[in-house]
């Protein structure tokens, strides 16, 4: 299988590499099938690339790498479609977004992936976590002057 992505050109993948998000993502409901593009274990950023829409890709990071102590509290109901009983054992990813000043992480609505079942879902965390947690020293913050 392959997709001609807008950002990275042609990407080949096996059917087993695809993660199914049965509901899509909020705002991207038609995007059910995704692959993860990454440089390797050391890269801080990976891309969640839509299979259906070549122009849709979301930069994702491990939130704890940027926000030590980040912990997902989520209603049990949210994890049932992932066939997960607890968040443990799941891949937890924060979507990178941006504000007028900096890159930011959506800590309120992280993506949770069940690697074994190849299932994913964007969940809404309990509590008052920010949807735009601005990152210090991100490229957008660097002064050009």
């Amino acid at each position, binding site marked *: 299988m392959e997709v001609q*992505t807008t*950002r*990275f*050109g*042609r*990407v*080949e*993948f*096996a059917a*087993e*590499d695809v993660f199914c998000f*049965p*509901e899509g*993502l*909020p*705002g*991207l409901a038609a995007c059910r099938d995704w*692959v*993860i*593009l*990454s*440089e*390797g274990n050391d*890269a*801080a*950023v*990976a*891309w969640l690339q839509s299979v259906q829409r070549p*122009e*849709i*890709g*979301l*930069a994702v*990071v491990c939130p704890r790498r940027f926000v030590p102590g980040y912990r997902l509290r989520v209603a049990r*109901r949210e994890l*049932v*479609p992932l066939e997960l009983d607890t968040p443990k054992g799941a891949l937890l990813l924060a*979507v*990178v*977004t*941006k504000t007028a000043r900096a*890159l930011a992480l*959506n800590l*309120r*609505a992280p993506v949770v992936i069940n*690697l074994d079942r*190849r299932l994913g879902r*964007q969940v*809404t965390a309990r509590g008052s976590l920010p*949807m*735009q947690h601005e*990152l210090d020293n*991100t*490229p*957008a913050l*660097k002064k050009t002057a």
Partner: protein
Amino acid sequence: MLVLSRQRDESIVIGEEIVVTIVDIRGDKVRLGIEAPTEVPVHRREVFEAIQAENLRASQLGAKEVRGLGQPRSTACSNARRG
């Protein structure tokens, strides 16, 4: 919009599987209990709309914009690939 009057502990049924119950009413705040199949997402509207907007904004990010955080390679993650 369909408008129905309900009292505390009364419910409405949507389709065969969704039940919304008035759990509590205090002043201008109403607490709702929602029973729905787990595959039906349930969101507070303003939160859902904010997530939608954030995802669409995030999907506009270019690869160069996040390069300072790390650089992806254009090959699929192969940890589940089978020979």
